[in-house]
């Protein structure tokens, strides 16, 4: 009879949760260069003698590079493992963030921000993190990825005021250097020290489950059972319907979140609502987003993930309907309340479902591809919403389109044959 030797007496916490904690911190501090960039536009505009539009172009180029780099980082993760990818990326982002503090003009800023910070940032956010966590968790995958994802939300809430106030206390150069130093001295060592690519590296099983005779005999294959559609090469996934279904829904996800992030406050202003009210509503949306992602992540571990995705997109669609159907002063708050609950919730569901259908071997690349199309969708919608407003003088037509696409995404999610494809319900040998 076999027993698992590595469950220490008195230790009730599965090691995977320490990994989630470390990645939560990585997300929390890692989003700073992206989310706080706008804080410094006015300062740089004066000091570098450039316009806000020129600085925005640097930010936009950075985000484009970040989008393109996602599949590359995913492939690197599949090849070398998430730990080294996240460690090296955090070092690069930390150095880049520190160097932003010594830039002398817009060109040096662009040189640091675009190829270094923006590229490396793909290596510390969702793609490698999800690919690593799906190895550590099976039954609690949704919860684990949700807790990890919430780090970026909390990071936005904590670090933006932190950097804003630090800017008042010291200057912009010291502010960036402090955050860069924190990444290099705190986050990077934490990643290296805590993260392990696979529970088997420590003789553990996913979720901390005891090792049975079957898993002991079967090793890796038994500890991570694959579904019937598990792939060896990422291209194989695109020969099956679920990958296209998840791609289609993620494009809609990017479109609807991207457009709102940029056009929410301008929409409110166009409806005669004060900026402060719109800002408060958007703040409420961000807070409910945090609650929503944690709740849906936990619940999804106890139900079909495709049903949760159906619900998430459906609820978000209802939020857009509220924005169109209700008077704008009420619709704004209704949108924040309803839409906030579904904002980030699609991320853990999509990441977990992809791994459960296509296996963990190419989880990084496939998540990278999904994130790429998400961002392409977001960029298209930002332009699209602006174009609609310029042509019609109102955001309403765009919001109607958004509600329609979300209904489509909800339907497509519901059509995913999860019970027939997911390793949660069927294993490769059973389906043969």
């Amino acid at each position, binding site marked *: *009879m*076999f*027993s*698992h*030797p*590595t469950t*220490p*007496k*008195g*230790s009730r*916490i599965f*090691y995977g949760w*320490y990994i989630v904690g*470390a990645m939560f*911190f990585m997300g929390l*501090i890692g989003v700073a260069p*992206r*989310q*706080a*960039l*706008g*804080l410094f536009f*006015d300062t740089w505009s004066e000091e570098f003698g450039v316009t806000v*539009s020129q600085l*925005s*172009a640097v*930010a*936009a180029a950075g*985000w484009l590079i970040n*989008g393109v780099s996602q599949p590359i980082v995913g492939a690197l993760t599949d090849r070398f493992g998430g730990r080294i990818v996240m460690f090296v990326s955090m070092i690069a982002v930390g150095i880049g963030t520190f160097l932003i503090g010594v830039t002398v003009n817009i060109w040096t800023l662009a040189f640091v921000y675009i190829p270094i910070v923006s590229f490396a940032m793909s290596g510390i*956010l*969702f793609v490698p993190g999800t690919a690593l966590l799906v190895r550590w968790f099976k039954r609690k995958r949704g919860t684990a990825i949700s807790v990890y994802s919430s780090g*970026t939300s909390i990071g*936005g809430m904590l670090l933006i005021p*932190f950097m804003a*106030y*630090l800017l008042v*206390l010291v200057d912009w150069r010291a502010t960036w250097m402090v955050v860069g130093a924190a990444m290099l001295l*705190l986050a990077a060592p934490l990643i290296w020290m*805590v993260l392990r690519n696979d529970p*088997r590296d*420590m*003789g*553990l099983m996913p979720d901390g489950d005891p090792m049975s005779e079957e898993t*002991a005999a079967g*090793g890796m294959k038994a500890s991570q059972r694959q579904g019937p559609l598990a792939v060896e090469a990422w291209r194989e996934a695109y020969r099956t319907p679920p990958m296209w279904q998840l791609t289609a829904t993620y494009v809609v996800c990017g479109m609807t*979140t991207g457009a709102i*992030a*940029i056009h929410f*406050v*301008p929409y409110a202003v166009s409806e005669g609502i004060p900026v*402060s009210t719109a800002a*408060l509503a*958007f703040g409420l949306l961000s807070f409910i987003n945090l609650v929503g992602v944690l709740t849906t992540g936990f619940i999804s571990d106890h139900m079909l993930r495709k049903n949760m995705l159906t619900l998430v997109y459906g609820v978000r669609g209802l939020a857009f309907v509220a924005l169109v159907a209700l008077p704008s002063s009420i619709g704004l708050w209704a949108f924040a309340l309803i839409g906030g609950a579904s904002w980030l919730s699609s991320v853990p569901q999509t990441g977990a479902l992809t791994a459960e259908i296509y296996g963990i071997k190419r989880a990084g690349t496939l998540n990278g591809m999904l*994130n790429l199309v*998400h*961002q392409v969708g*977001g960029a298209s919608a*930002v332009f699209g919403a*602006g174009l609609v407003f310029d042509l019609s003088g109102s955001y309403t037509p765009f919001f109607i389109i958004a509600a329609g696409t979300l209904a489509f995404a909800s339907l497509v999610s519901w059509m995913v044959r999860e019970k027939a494809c997911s390793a949660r319900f069927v294993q490769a040998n059973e389906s043969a």
Partner: protein
Amino acid sequence: MPALAILAHHSEPSDPVLLGWLVGTFEEVLGLGPATVVVPIAIGIGVFPCLLGWLAWRARCRYAAGASDSPDATDIGGDGLRAK
């Protein structure tokens, strides 16, 4: 507002108008200066990874000790399993 400012995944870039309003409201409501915001967050950012790193290290030590504590255990091939 930058036209391409939300290519990032669900990470809304800070809108200076929004942030200015938030900071102003925060100061108005709580009457706190910059240092009273910066110092607690800085302490949190410093303490959290140190504490987590220490706890994870302790857990790994326990796992390692648990692995070597079984007197009747026999290694069966390098994947951390032992047969009783």
